[in-house]
């Protein structure tokens, strides 16, 4: 029971992190039909922003977190403005290849600016004792950090759902996802709303990344690649274009990974491969994902 509980909470935490990153993919894809390859790398930059705020500028953890999240949001907005906007009318392949280029660029930028040598995110905490605290749930000792992460994740999703469903700009986002020309005819500044979408998705991803770094403190320029890829798989799993789908897909993927590794430890090294197997299966069986709608190609 203890074993199960520990893994359960780990699964929720990991799933929440995947979900935070997946949401960004889903929103951008829903609007632009573009897989933003650079998303995972924006997350990585967010983590570095947090690291430097805390370690170099000695800001307290909460301030560092805020600075990093805002910084990532700005970065996301900038990338869209500079790299993707000029290609709005170009064939999809061009935008996709450019996204790969941006991803590449960010990774190398990080190598140049921050150095390729991995850093430990634990340096952010002046007082390391917080990392040791645990809470006991039915005989299982769950790290305080895990709960913290779950709570913050939940809070962020609440904010997200509020923005998307209860604000004007959220409505604009949903309108654009349905039909860009009509929305622009209704007086909405489409480019700004798209930029905002990128910013929002990037902010969430950065938040996710920072919490990820608290759990897996190895910070390096390529750290965004695999989580980014897996988050994308989670988004597809849940139904690309659907925010709830991304959340569902993320949590499911996290749970599956944790439980698989827990109960079948011999396949530890192949853990990452499972995500891809899930991807292929989903794409072949139900490409629209768990919560997505079936799209008919009009001939």
């Amino acid at each position, binding site marked *: 029971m203890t074993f199960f509980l520990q893994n359960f909470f780990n699964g929720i935490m990991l799933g929440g992190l995947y979900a935070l990153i997946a949401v960004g993919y889903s929103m951008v*894809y829903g609007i632009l*039909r*573009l*897989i933003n390859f650079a998303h995972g790398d924006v997350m990585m930059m967010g983590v570095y922003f947090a690291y430097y705020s805390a370690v170099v500028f000695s800001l307290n953890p909460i301030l560092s977190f805020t600075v990093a999240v805002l910084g990532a949001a700005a970065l996301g907005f900038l990338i869209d403005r500079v*790299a993707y906007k*000029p*290609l709005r009318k*170009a064939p*999809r*392949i*061009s935008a*996709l*290849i*450019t996204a*790969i*280029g*941006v991803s*590449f*660029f960010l990774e*190398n*930028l990080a*190598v*140049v600016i921050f*150095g*390729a040598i991995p850093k430990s995110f634990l340096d952010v905490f002046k007082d390391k004792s917080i990392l040791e605290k645990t809470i006991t749930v039915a005989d299982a000792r769950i790290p305080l950090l895990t709960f913290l992460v779950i709570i913050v994740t939940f809070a962020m999703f609440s904010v997200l759902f509020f923005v998307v469903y209860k604000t004007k700009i959220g409505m604009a986002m949903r309108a654009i996802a349905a039909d860009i020309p009509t929305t622009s005819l209704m007086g909405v500044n489409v480019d700004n709303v798209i930029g905002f979408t990128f910013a929002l998705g990037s902010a969430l991803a950065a938040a996710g990344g920072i919490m990820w770094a608290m759990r897996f403190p190895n910070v390096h320029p*390529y750290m965004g*690649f*695999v989580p980014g*890829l897996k988050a*994308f*798989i989670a988004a*597809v799993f849940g139904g690309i274009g659907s925010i709830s789908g991304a959340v569902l897909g993320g949590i499911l993927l996290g749970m599956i990974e944790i439980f698989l590794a827990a109960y079948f430890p011999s396949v530890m*090294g*192949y853990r*990452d*491969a499972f*995500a*891809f*197997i899930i*991807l*292929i299966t989903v*794409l*072949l069986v139900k*490409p629209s994902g768990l919560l997505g709608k079936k799209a008919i*190609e009009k*001939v």
Partner: protein
Amino acid sequence: MERKLPKKLNFVLTLLFILFVAFLLYLANEKLDEYMLRVVRLIAIYGVMAVSLNLINGITGIFSLGHAGFILVGAYTSALLTLSPEQKMMSFIIEPIVPWLANVHTDFLTATLAGGALSALFAFLIGWPVLRLSGDYLAIASLGFAEVIRIFALNAISITNGPLGLKGIPEYSSIWWCYGWLFVTVIFVASLVNSSYGRALKAIREDRVAAEVMGINVFKHQLISFVVGAFFAGVSGALYAHWLTTIDPRATTLGPMLTFYVLIMIVLGGLGSISGSLIGAALFAILFEWLRDLEEPFVLFGMRVPGIKGMRTLVISVIFILVMIFWQRGIMGREELTWNNIYRWLKRRGESG
């Protein structure tokens, strides 16, 4: 009106060109220093990678990002065959090598062909599920498969030696092997493209549905393109392994970064053009080496600028993004550097000059 050079002239020019290149290669082999020669050989290896990826992405329009996976398969397969049983026994210290690989030892040609063949087999198996997907998903799925191959390489220790990789691979990739294989690749792919098959592949790129309605079995043709591309990717992997002399599965030079490099080559050269891919490969190799200087301290306007590691890949990625935004067609676009085209270009210059 189509002005074509007579077929015989075309043939003679091509033959002369090949002899000329062979002569240059001979000179290079004799006169160039070790370092330069290495770069020249690498250009050919990149060339094979680029031409094979271009067949899949540029000509058939399949947005595959899994090329590094096929290259890796070719690299491992060929290396495991050219390493002597003693070397294998000594390298595999975590877990002993599987018995059926322990005593195999072949020559370079057989090893390279085996590498290509195994890659082609992988492509055939992967193609069945992956090629049914549309553009964006295909990209991710193919990237995923390449990652799975890398994960397998890291974990199947008794076959690949896991994270330790393979060392001491004999440096068989001489200038003749590299350019010989490049020649074969170009001839094969060009011949395929200049046939009814080639037209069918291009039609698939233009409009999948219309191609299907014109009687083309789109899936089968995509699979053929994918498998052929993977075969030559495997060959390039074999050449690469015997140029690097080590395979380190954790190195970025063999992971998704490699696929991006090859993508840059074909985009720069012109997506859909074989000659473009060759030009792109050469440019990339030269640029990459030339930019190496940026990573050492250098003097700019009389000031000493410290070298920054990783600067060159950064510059390359900036160039890549700029090319994508401002110059998508690349150097050759979809045209080829044929004698006819050169003749027509010269004529046009002559007329306006």
